């Protein structure tokens, strides 16, 4: 079956895109109020603001010779549902433990999502890319940094 098949095939990368909506406020305790306003501008609004995040999760590995797949997409979606969407969708990022001592910039959010998917057993995470808006996107990879 899928889990026991030959894993010596050519190596490919599979990317799945997820969407979630969350609010955040960029504010660093280490800065004064004025510094926070200077550094973060309108993102420092004390009441927060929100985004529809587009999250691309890329896993890589040999294409299983029996299934033709890098990983079971259903397993990836299930993992994302449980560990990404249920944790972050429709939430205020500043209130979550992950951002207790970390400013919830999309840079930090991208690294956090990467860390979460390192727990996925179906294939190896190689890249996370998050679109905060149509104009801004952030990418983190320990393998495909030059791509």
């Amino acid at each position: 079956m899928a889990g026991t098949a030959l894993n010596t095939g050519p190596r490919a990368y599979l990317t799945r895109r997820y969407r979630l909506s969350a609010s955040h406020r960029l504010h660093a305790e280490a800065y004064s109020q004025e510094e926070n306003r200077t550094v973060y501008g309108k993102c420092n609004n004390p009441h927060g603001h929100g985004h529809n995040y587009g999250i691309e999760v890329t896993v890589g590995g040999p294409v299983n010779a029996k299934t033709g797949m890098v990983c079971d997409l259903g397993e990836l979606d299930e993992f994302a549902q449980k560990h990404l969407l249920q944790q972050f969708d429709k939430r205020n990022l500043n209130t979550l433990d992950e951002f207790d001592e970390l400013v919830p910039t999309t840079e930090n959010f991208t690294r956090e999502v990467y860390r979460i998917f390192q727990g996925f057993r179906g294939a190896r995470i190689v890249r996370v890319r998050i679109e905060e808006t149509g104009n801004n996107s952030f990418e983190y990879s320990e393998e495909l940094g030059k791509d």
Partner: protein
Amino acid sequence: MILLTRKAEFSSAHYYWNEAWTEEQNLRVFGRCANKNGHGHNYTLEVTVAGDVDPVSGFVVDLKELKEIVQRDVVSVYDHRHLNLEVPEFAASSGMIPTTENIAIAIWRRLEGKIPGAKLHRVRVYEMDDLFADYYGER
């Protein structure tokens, strides 16, 4: 070095089936994709080539030529076809199931070495907006 990407689209039918498995195994692993009547997608293909800029033309490759190669060797073979039944690399006897990953690999093999003046860098195949596969060749 510059990377240059050309996009193309094709619409094809396919299904997922491993001949070495029982029907029950196929249904368990591939679910709805195992329906042998097939289903289809509008695929988007991105072909990325790498090369140096020609000092005279200012081009990495002649885009028109790249377009024609992609059209001749991929789009004309895959578009409005049933991949399992009409495209040789995905015939049941080949053992290559036309998943998005394998389509990217097959397209790489069709294009590798055919682009004058540039090296194939990446083949990206979108099955849908929220799902795509990348292949960079053997590395």
